[in-house]
């Protein structure tokens, strides 16, 4: 289980020359994702999704609030320990082009402190599950986008984490590649893993997620199951829910 408690991240941005303004990219967000749950993070561009996910993954230190993770035997403390239990992937976590998928998996496995025999066994498993056999020994800079994305996912899997954090994992993929990733997430959920992921594809989120957290300008707008959200807002689908909730917010902000 992973819980965000009142998370705040403040950045300074230079507005004009020598004039700096502080703003909260993430402004007091709290939510949690249980074992065996897929939580979808929705929000317009610049809502603070990536910053939030980076803080959850331990890549960024929050300005305020805290992330607590319970995995395996209990509460996880310390950034390095946290990273051992999280598999994080985003558009910014690219892979070394001069290595093959198998080499990448071996390298990451070794740094996670796994035994060589375990790494080999797990690598074969992953390659089978993600159907990577054809290209597992080719250099990554010679692979197609879908193949690279599958390799990226395999990289998160090697240390068998309890929590997955994916930032737009299906972005720019064809239907075949993205459904492979969706199937994978569902399968992990069945195994009792926690998945938090962000996306702009509403249908996909509706199909996959047990719960939807919508954020806008660093704040949580709603946090409920897709069905409840549709009922509450009287909408046909998630796309409508999104437009109603977010557009409301934008309009009220414009009126102020």
């Amino acid at each position, binding site marked *: 289980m992973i819980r965000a408690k009142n998370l705040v991240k403040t950045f300074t941005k230079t507005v004009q020359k020598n004039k700096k303004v502080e703003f909260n990219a993430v402004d007091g967000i709290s939510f949690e994702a249980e074992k065996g749950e897929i939580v979808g993070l929705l929000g317009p561009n610049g809502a603070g999704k990536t910053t939030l996910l980076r803080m959850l993954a331990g*890549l960024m230190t929050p300005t305020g609030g805290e992330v607590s993770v319970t995995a395996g035997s209990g509460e996880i403390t310390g950034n390095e320990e946290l*990273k051992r239990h999280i598999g994080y992937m985003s558009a910014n976590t*690219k892979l070394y082009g001069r290595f093959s998928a198998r080499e990448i998996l071996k390298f990451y496995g*070794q740094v996670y402190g796994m035994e060589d025999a375990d790494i080999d066994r797990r690598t074969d498993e992953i390659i089978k599950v993600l159907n990577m056999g054809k290209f597992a020994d080719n250099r990554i800079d010679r692979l197609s986008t879908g193949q690279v994305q599958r390799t990226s996912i395999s990289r998160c899997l090697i240390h068998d984490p309890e929590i997955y954090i994916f930032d737009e994992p299906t972005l720019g993929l064809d239907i075949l590649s993205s459904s492979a990733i969706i199937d994978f997430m569902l399968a992990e959920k069945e195994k009792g893993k926690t998945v938090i992921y962000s996306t702009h594809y509403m249908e996909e989120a509706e199909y996959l997620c047990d719960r939807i957290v919508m954020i806008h300008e660093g704040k949580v707008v709603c946090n409920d199951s897709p069905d409840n959200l549709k009922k509450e807002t009287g909408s046909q689908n998630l796309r409508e829910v999104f437009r109603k909730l977010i557009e409301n917010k934008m309009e009220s902000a414009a009126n102020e």
Partner: protein
Amino acid sequence: MNNKLKIFKTLFLKELRDVLRDKKAIMMMVLVPVVVYPLIVLGSLMVTNILADDKDTTYDITVYNESTGLDARNLENILKENAVETNEEDGSKEQLYNVVFNVSDTKISEDQCKDMIGDKNLDVYLEIADNGEKVEVKAFYMESVNESSEAMDKVRRAVDDISDGIVEENVEKAGLDTDSFLNPISFEKKGLSSSEQIAGQILGMILPMMIVLSILISVMHPSIDLTAGEKERGTLETLLMLPVSGKYIVMAKTLTAALCGVVTAILNILSMSVVFGVMFEQLKASGMMDGVNIDFSSFISAMLLTFPVIIVTALFMSAIFMCFTCFAKSYKEANSYMSPVMMVLMFLAYGSMIPTVELNQYVAVVPVLNVSILLRDALNFKLDYAILLLVLCSMVLYSVLAILFLSKAYNSENLLFGDGKNAISLFEKRSNIKKGMSVTIGDACFIYPFVILVYLLFGTLIQAKYELVGLPISQFLILVGIPLAFFVYAKKDIKKVYSFNKCKPLSLVGGVITGIGAFFVAAILGDIIMKVTGITVNEGLSDTLTGFFSHNVIAAVLCVALTPAIAEEMLFRGIVFSALKDKVKPVCSVLIVSVLFGLFHMDLLKFFTTGALGAILCLTVYFGGSIFPSMLAHFMVNSISVIMAKYATEQMINTLNEPIFGIIGFGLVVIGLFIVKNSNKKSSF
């Protein structure tokens, strides 16, 4: 620790593999030293050969003669004679250049002369006239035209020859002895430098700069690629998801880039040796090196000694480069950051070309310049071990500082997500430091070179000024004071750092016995090394010591024996050994401490003797679990040396060098260590 070491190894191998699969890096690493440099040298050699072989030069000389004292034909003959060189051995003749000699009936004006030289119709125009008793020769030429000024030199030589002939004739006419009259003083040069020294001097001008530059070039690409390149390719965030501290990532990167530099430097040295070897053989075959015989094996020791220098240089460069490149977002941006850094480093590398820059202790702390001059001195057979140590220490210190800075940068999210311009504080805030930690290897890596640097720079000054009292002042102030200040700031557990643990009186007795034994062992070892290798004691060093001993014995014992026993023990068996003992195998930590201790004494012979001593003292701390027995042992060794130096006769010293004393000494050491170990065991129960 083992686990961390394994992770570090994995990271390092990953970076290394990444670089080795990068064709650009391989090109820089191999192409420059193996192909480009030799080609430059051979090319420039060929050009000079072509220029030297040019025998078709013809000098056009025109004369207007209205003098009766000097015959123009005479001048022509001498000019043409000078153009032919006769080999003294076989009498064969060789035409060096041609002379076309014209006698003009009319004067040529200066403007006309200029035009003719410009059109290559003329090189020198001479006007010869009488002026009373003397003959006046005016030669017109153009300094800016190469052939014209060369022709001018030939004319000058011919005129001097004629002039000499006339003087000689006159002297003879006056009935004097021409030889003693014209050459009252004979002068003969005799160069004493060996051929190796001359070759070393020439190599010393070029080779250091070449080596330093080749390291610079080969380190640059991986430094940029592994930092800014990684950021550009977007793999940095992936890497930072790993549960490892930024420190390991940074060290793996710096070591990888440094390794590239070391490989290049070695390739460079090998390829240049081949080039010089071939050149030398060719010169020998063409008979230009008659009587010169260079024993190249005499340079091997210099090359071996420069090996550690190459390593620290490569490390320094990669660490410094990365400090700049890690803030760039792309390879291109990093390249532009690198240009000013490169300029400065290249300028410093040219130091070896300037013969007036000497390697004193101040130059020795200027990075890159120190290395360049040190390599030159090594090739000139002028290597000073104290300076070598100073250079190594200062370079290591700068590298450690740069790596510290870098690991801060890699732990900071500013580097990853921000614009990277926000300041990164080098040292941890004091409020964030945990209290009572023991000393780490990182701390020791920083403190040891820093302390040694300050000690070599200022300690020697203090010792020169205050003589006997200078030793305790400098040792306590620098070797003890500086680390202590650091530890107080870092809230370290002083007792743990220095192993100030209680010990049984019996283990103190063990320390005394070990010390006495160690003295014999060191003395015998020194004697054996002196006899086998011919290395002798540095005379300056023993003079200072004798100077010390002319003082009161008690004062000498206090200053020369007691001070180092406390101060040096605290630095070496305290800080350095504490840092190592839990993290490295005992054998390795003892070895490292004794090498550092040996280096500290700045003398080749003493390196071995004090190194052995350092090992024994280390074992005393290791078995005793406290620093006091080893302090006592150190004090025993020093005070016996002091008393021996003052009172012992030559005969006594010779007797001491009998092998039996070595065996007794070794026995005493074993017994002493046994006592120390046993009494420690009892106290722990």
